[in-house]
């Protein structure tokens, strides 16, 4: 088994770049597992957690909030709208965001942008999940 090079970019910065043995990413229609020598793939990602395991079996988690994934035989590139390593996540903030989004979805105030509130909820859930806070 060879290794994959995983690179995660957001418009603001490069979040992650390392050699990994496998990647699991939140595809639009379910999680995608990617191993080395994968066929060329372009996938749409939704908000969720990206797991990647390195050669020693250590797992790194990243919260992403949607984007694009390009996989090749030796390289996986994720263009995320937002991405954070598990260690960088502000758990308190994510929790507050989750509560806010849940409240909004429950109460449905007039003029609520339902899709947006739902997306905010998914983003905060992805963060909390990546940080192992739920």
């Amino acid at each position, binding site marked *: 088994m060879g290794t994959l090079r995983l690179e995660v*970019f957001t*418009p*603001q910065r490069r979040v992650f770049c390392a050699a990994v043995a496998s990647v699991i990413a939140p595809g639009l229609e379910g999680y995608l597992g990617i191993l080395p020598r994968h066929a*060329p793939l372009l996938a749409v990602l939704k908000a969720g957690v990206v797991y990647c395991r390195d050669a020693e079996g250590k797992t790194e988690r990243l919260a992403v909030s949607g984007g694009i994934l390009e996989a090749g035989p030796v390289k996986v*590139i994720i263009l995320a709208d937002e991405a954070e390593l598990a260690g960088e996540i502000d758990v308190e903030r994510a929790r507050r965001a989750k509560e806010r989004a849940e409240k909004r979805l429950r109460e449905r105030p007039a003029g609520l942008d339902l899709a947006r509130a739902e997306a905010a909820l998914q983003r905060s859930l992805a963060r909390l999940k990546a940080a192992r806070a739920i």
Partner: protein
Amino acid sequence: MSAIREIKRRIKLIKNIQHVTGAMKMVASAKLRRAQSRLYAARPYAQKIVELVGRLALAPEAQSLPLLASREVKKKAYVLIAGDRGLAGAYNSHLIHLAEQCLRREEQPVALVVAGRKGWQYFRRRSVEILKSYAEIGDEPDLSLARELARQLMAIFLEGQVDEVNLVYARFHSALRYDPLVERLLPIQAPSLEGSDSLDYLYEPGPMAVLETILPRYCEIRVYQALLEAKASEHGARMIAMESATKNSSEMIEQLTLSYNKARQNAITTELLEVATGAEALKDQG
């Protein structure tokens, strides 16, 4: 005597101005450094997405997507990205001039979207239709502003308010150089790729879904990059303007010091002459 005092006062005044311009130069150069590093940090993402759009947009079915489809141009929009503040040399006037040229050149109706206070201040009093205005970009344009702006632009394009959207901004080369330019944003032109590998991709969930996800992001990143380029150019222009102002005031101080010394010397000479003539007169009497 009053002439001497006047010169002294002016020297002090200019020294104060020099302090201010010197400080502004330092601030601008710090901001320039930050803007530059953000600009470079945005590049890998932008490059990748340009590559993807270039690869996908050539597919024949892609042409039916509204963001890509060019239609008969009945109305054009120009997006002027200018500075929020002045004292940046000719930066703002360069951009405003370029925008004005674009507007005048068009035969069909045009509309403006302005970002940056200076552009808005100039165009609000003119007979130009302003679709949207963002008075403040801030010193460090953030992504959410770029997304907001890009979304608005896509909305007015998709609603059919305009049939073409162009960006007018300054591309950053170095602190000494920026190029004001006009770039088409919408409809998206597929960037041409040289020697692109036509790998057969699997698409998840499908090629059109992937393209539909990529295109808005492509727009956002282009607006974001334009804002970053513009800001870096503005800080660079301001830094250079303030540096030359500081240098000019040094020269002025030098010249004024020279005339101050001359005036002082003159006064002393006159005084000495008076004393000497007085003494001479006394000697004659005695």
